[in-house]
């Protein structure tokens, strides 16, 4: 269970050391990029999750990897925590500076430094978000396919091994990284695939690139990434279908995958979620478990055939009201509920913050886990909705919570805890895409076993002997 003791006040020793370092930082960065005022630092102590705000002692805004290296070296000498910050759109408290220290706001480094159209890759700095990148690519016929809900920093997405609705077809962040520029705890600038190397694949040595993917700022700070881009699909279509119950909706997903239908997006909204969305956006849809689908193809006939096959499978599973569209406006309209899902849930409770769960289980176990979870939530009396990247067995429960209400939070944490145990029991994971951050540290041992956690701690000790890189996250201390 998550312990609030972790969020005690900032260490005053760290605070004093940081104050002492301000002149040194100003010499490296220039005065305007060293921020110490409370109102400024306040923005950097939280992300979009539910963990309380714990601002850093200083915010630095580097413009180059050399500046990042110099700052980290200084912090390492002084044993001061360093937390990298991209867009602050994480959900697991990854940037919460509960041990104080220095926050590196990387948004000034906002260039796409290379675009290699023929090789289907490009190199981006941490200030480039996924929507910014697609805007830069808009006339090239290429696009960046990893699309989590937020318009997140791509390097941040790498740090959390993010994925999105298109991952079922185009892969998660992990499958779309060729090389990383990482600054290590002692200031060393490392190129995980070698400097300027961009092979499609390689067997050269240990896979350092993957080591940093999902490391949540605890093994190094990512300052540049070579990522894959894909050709835009020439033809698209979208479809929506409701079902009498969760089991049949998920069964349809299993059928679709088994038929080798290369579905591009397949999302699930449960009944409560549909109710919220229909009320919030005044939609003409069924208040039933619903699948949202998107098809990408080489030409119009291709997507027509995919859509027709999907329709057949939906009907076979007693689908209700299968609707499809091929024009942009129509497609957006069909998907509106899915796009507004988070806001619709949050609108049910004014002033609440979002508490989101993130388990991922083998597809065969999904109907059971979702059904049991729904029963558990309903029995608890709490309000929560379910949205899922069902194609991958990953789903989120969204609870609008008031963190100050301790009794309520106990119930929520109970639901979340039982959900994780449920997922682990069927061979799944406690987090499909959001990361461990603060809230899931205690599950790592059960999920990975003592040996796994032990090895992770060994790696952490080797790469960050003074434990300055985002301390207190991912691994227990």
């Amino acid at each position, binding site marked *: 269970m998550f312990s609030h003791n972790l969020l005690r006040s900032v260490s005053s020793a760290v605070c004093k050391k940081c104050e002492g370092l301000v002149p040194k930082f100003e010499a490296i960065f220039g005065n305007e990029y060293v921020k110490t005022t409370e109102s400024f630092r306040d923005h950097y102590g939280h992300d979009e999750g539910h963990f309380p705000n714990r601002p850093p002692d200083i915010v630095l805004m580097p413009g180059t990897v050399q500046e990042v290296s110099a700052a980290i070296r200084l912090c390492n000498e002084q044993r001061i925590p360093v937390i990298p910050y991209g867009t602050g759109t994480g959900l697991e408290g990854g940037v919460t500076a509960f041990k104080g220290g220095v926050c590196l706001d990387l948004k000034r480094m906002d260039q796409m430094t290379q675009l290699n159209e023929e090789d289907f890759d490009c190199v981006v700095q941490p200030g480039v978000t996924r929507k910014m990148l697609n805007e*830069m690519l*808009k*006339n090239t*016929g290429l696009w960046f396919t990893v699309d989590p809900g937020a318009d997140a920093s791509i390097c941040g997405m790498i740090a959390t091994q993010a994925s999105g609705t298109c991952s079922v077809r185009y892969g998660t962040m992990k499958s779309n990284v060729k090389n990383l520029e990482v600054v290590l705890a002692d200031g060393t600038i490392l190129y995980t695939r070698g400097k300027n190397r961009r092979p499609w694949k390689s067997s050269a040595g240990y896979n350092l690139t993957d080591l940093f993917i999902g490391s949540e700022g605890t093994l190094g700070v990512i300052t540049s990434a070579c990522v894959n881009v894909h*050709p835009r699909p020439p033809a698209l279509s979208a479809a929506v279908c409701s079902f009498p119950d969760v089991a049949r909706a998920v069964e349809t997903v299993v059928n679709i995958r088994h038929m080798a239908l290369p579905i591009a997006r397949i999302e699930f909204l449960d009944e409560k979620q549909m109710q919220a969305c229909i009320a919030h956006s005044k939609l003409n849809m069924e208040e039933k478990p619903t699948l949202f689908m998107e098809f990408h193809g080489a030409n119009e006939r291709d997507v027509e055939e995919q859509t027709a096959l999907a329709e057949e499978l939906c009907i076979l599973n007693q689908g209700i009201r299968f609707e499809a569209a091929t024009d942009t406006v129509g497609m957006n309209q069909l998907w509106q509920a899915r796009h507004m899902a988070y806001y619709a849930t949050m609108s049910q409770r004014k002033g609440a913050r979002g508490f989101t769960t993130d388990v991922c289980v083998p597809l065969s176990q999904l109907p059971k886990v979702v059904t049991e979870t729904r029963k558990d939530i309903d029995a608890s009396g709490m309000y929560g909705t379910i949205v899922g990247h069902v194609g991958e067995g990953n789903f989120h429960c969204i609870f609008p919570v008031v963190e100050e209400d301790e009794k309520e939070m106990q119930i929520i944490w109970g639901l979340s805890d039982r959900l994780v145990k449920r997922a682990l029991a069927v061979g799944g994971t406690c987090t499909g895409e959001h990361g461990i951050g603060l809230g899931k540290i205690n599950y790592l041992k059960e999920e990975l076993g003592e040996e796994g956690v032990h090895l992770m701690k060994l790696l952490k000790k080797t790469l960050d002997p003074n434990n300055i890189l985002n301390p207190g996250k991912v691994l227990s201390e």
Partner: protein
Amino acid sequence: MRVLVGVKRVIDFAVKVRVKPDKTSVVTDNVPHSMNPFDEIALEEAVKLKEANHAKEIVAFSLGPAKNQEILRTALAKGADKAIHLEVDDATYQKVEPFHVAQAIAKLAKDEKFDLVFLGKQAIDDDANQTGQLVAGFLNWPQATFASKVETEGTSHLKVTREIDGGLETIKVKLPAVLTADLRLNEPRYATLPNIMKAKKKPIDKKTPKDLGLDLTSQTEVLEVSEPPTRKGGEFVEDVPTLVKKLKEKGAL
């Protein structure tokens, strides 16, 4: 119906524009450029007219230096059939005004017998919002500007809904006519790789100002280009009476 779509190469909207030290213009060297967003919308609407079999041919047009070819290739990738590049050198281009561009478009529209001239409502660099109106004036054609919806009325007329200050206005114009596109007219499609490949083979006709008998004499002179004043920091006050006093001092009350 043959449609002429004007496309302008402008500094990309996401770029932080900087003024040159000599205050004559903005920095354009090594700065990302792209097609004017309103022109993209005009092109998209023209292509949709062709897909609905109301238009037979879409021709993209641009006046500018060699780099404008990129914009024309993008237009071809997004569905234009042909392109016309009226090339001038960089120095000349600095002094080109909507007046000149409109003359060129009007001449082309008349000589090559276009039925519809479709432009963006304004360019995001100069925000002039003149070219479409000037073209209509030169040709004495009807104009429907700030279009947010375009429908055909038989083969001789178009029904256009326009965005105006008070709301929406719907008018009927007889072809040939000039239209300018507003933001909500449509959402432009992406160019896909196959279309980008195909666009490489589509023709781009080169023309010079002389070919069109174009007089590029300046009508206006830019005196100065400067940035807005930088924002100064705020200050905290202790209480409301002090706040009111300060606001009065600054002339805000």
